[in-house]
């Protein structure tokens, strides 16, 4: 069940000048959150930020009633969310959207870029619980764009590509050696910039495996009321906030 809930800012963990993890704490119970779910965060005391901001859940601690978000400070909303006081109240609507599906696979590949890596901590943990071997492939422009790899390494092997070669293999994720030779993955999960996800989906399709992608369309309501966040699919326009954000890429009109 979706709910509106007040939290307080517990702490910030700044990964660099523009990337941070925001951890919120509440007095109330946190409902079950699945990998891929997101929250609509009301940016407090920001007259110029009218709408809530849809942000993927990074992690959740049900016992201590804490929830965290990995946020890239790129717009006025995400910048303001990075400058709150400890203890300041933050209102969120959550958990929203569908989630990644875990099948009876032996080995899977997760490809993430940009802020699209957020849902893969909880997904990686769930996959490990099911003894599914996971390879994380994380891409960025430079080594300064690669985050959370220590976290991912708890749940599987981590591979990195950077466009300038400052960390991991040089090039785009789709040029990584993981895609060369025998493709032994049963499924691919991806989230990040559209061109990256499209290229990854194409490779999965060429190898005859399913690919689930989580889309990051702009949203207003987050609960399927306004129909602003649609994506074209083979069955017409679908609402990303409720029918997604996770889609089987075969369904998308890419």
């Amino acid at each position, binding site marked *: 069940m979706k709910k509106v809930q007040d939290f307080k800012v517990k702490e910030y963990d700044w990964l660099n000048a523009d990337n941070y993890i925001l951890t919120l704490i509440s007095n109330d119970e946190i409902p079950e959150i699945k990998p891929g779910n997101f929250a609509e965060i009301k940016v407090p005391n920001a007259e110029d930020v009218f709408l809530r901001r849809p942000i993927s859940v990074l992690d959740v601690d049900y016992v201590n009633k804490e929830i965290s978000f990995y946020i890239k400070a790129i717009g006025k909303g995400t910048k303001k969310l990075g400058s709150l006081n400890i203890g300041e109240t933050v209102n969120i609507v959550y958990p929203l959207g569908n989630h990644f599906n875990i099948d009876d696979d032996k080995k899977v590949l997760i490809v993430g870029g940009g802020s699209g890596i957020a849902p893969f901590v909880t997904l990686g943990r769930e996959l490990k619980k099911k003894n599914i071997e996971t390879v994380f492939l994380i891409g960025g422009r430079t080594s300064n764009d690669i985050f959370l790899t220590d976290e991912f390494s708890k749940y599987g092997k981590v591979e990195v590509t950077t466009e300038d070669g400052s960390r991991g293999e040089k090039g785009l994720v789709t040029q990584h050696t993981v895609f060369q030779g025998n493709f032994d993955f049963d499924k691919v999960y991806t989230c990040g910039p559209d061109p990256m996800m499209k290229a990854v989906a194409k490779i999965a399709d060429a190898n005859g495996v399913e690919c689930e992608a989580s889309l990051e369309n702009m949203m*207003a309501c987050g609960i399927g009321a306004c129909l602003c966040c649609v994506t074209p699919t083979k069955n017409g326009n679908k609402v990303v906030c409720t029918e997604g954000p996770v889609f089987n890429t075969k369904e998308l009109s890419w």
Partner: protein
Amino acid sequence: MVDLRVDIGGLELKNPVATASGTFGFGEEFADFIDLNRLGGIFVKGLTMKNREGNDYPRMAETASGMLNAVGLQNKGIDFFIDTIYPNIKKYNTEIFPNINGSIVEEYIAVAEKLNEVDGINSIELNISCPNVKEGGMAFGVSCPSAIAVTQAIRDVYDGTLIVKLSPNVTDITEIAKGVEGAGADAVSLVNTFLGMAIDAKTRKHLLSTITGGLSGPAIKPIALRMVWQVYNAVKIPIVGMGGIMNATDAIEFMLAGSSAIQVGTANFIDPQVSIKILEGIEDYCKQNNISAVKDLIGALED
């Protein structure tokens, strides 16, 4: 106890707080957050004769104290509403108002005829003010003769309470309001969104796929309030007022300007519980000011 009942052209609502079409889905989207039974009414997402995919993404842009949308009436058609959606929402003890649309008058008529036969639906909102469709929509609502023609055509086939939703994108909204009153409307609802536009100076590109879209939110409230007041002074039929209502104070202002009921729109996106908070706030206001019946607020603007 405050008597919260209001009358909309012969139809009694248990309270004046309704939700605006296009901002509240078909109601069930908000069932986790509020008790829908407490609402005075739900104006559901705009309906057309056949399935409509709406406009291309991007359809939304945030603006100063508001937002632009260009959804373009995405819906699965009137038959899907009657056969699949309505049976699930009619259990709620609130008035369900279908919002009807068409590219041509015949489409409006066909949709209205179907709804005329549905038990439990007592009223429709005739939308002649959607700014986001290429054909029909707002085109009907920005000229007096076409607004009168479509209202008359629907009046001829629809027996229930007919509410005509007016566009603010006109020189004189009172002329349109008087026209539809003369054509048989039982009430008018106003305002729909204002035609607007957003550009990204960095990329020099427009932010909506349709270039222009409809502006809503608190940015439009003073203009909407002025139009409600003007229409209240021009017609005798009731007004359902809307345009940037974010809280109970805004809602009370719309009633003082002449609204018999109000619709909460874009505010639902910011706070999915806001409609009930507004209802409770109106009741508190009445208690604090010794107003025994909320209808006493309608048009009670003092000199």
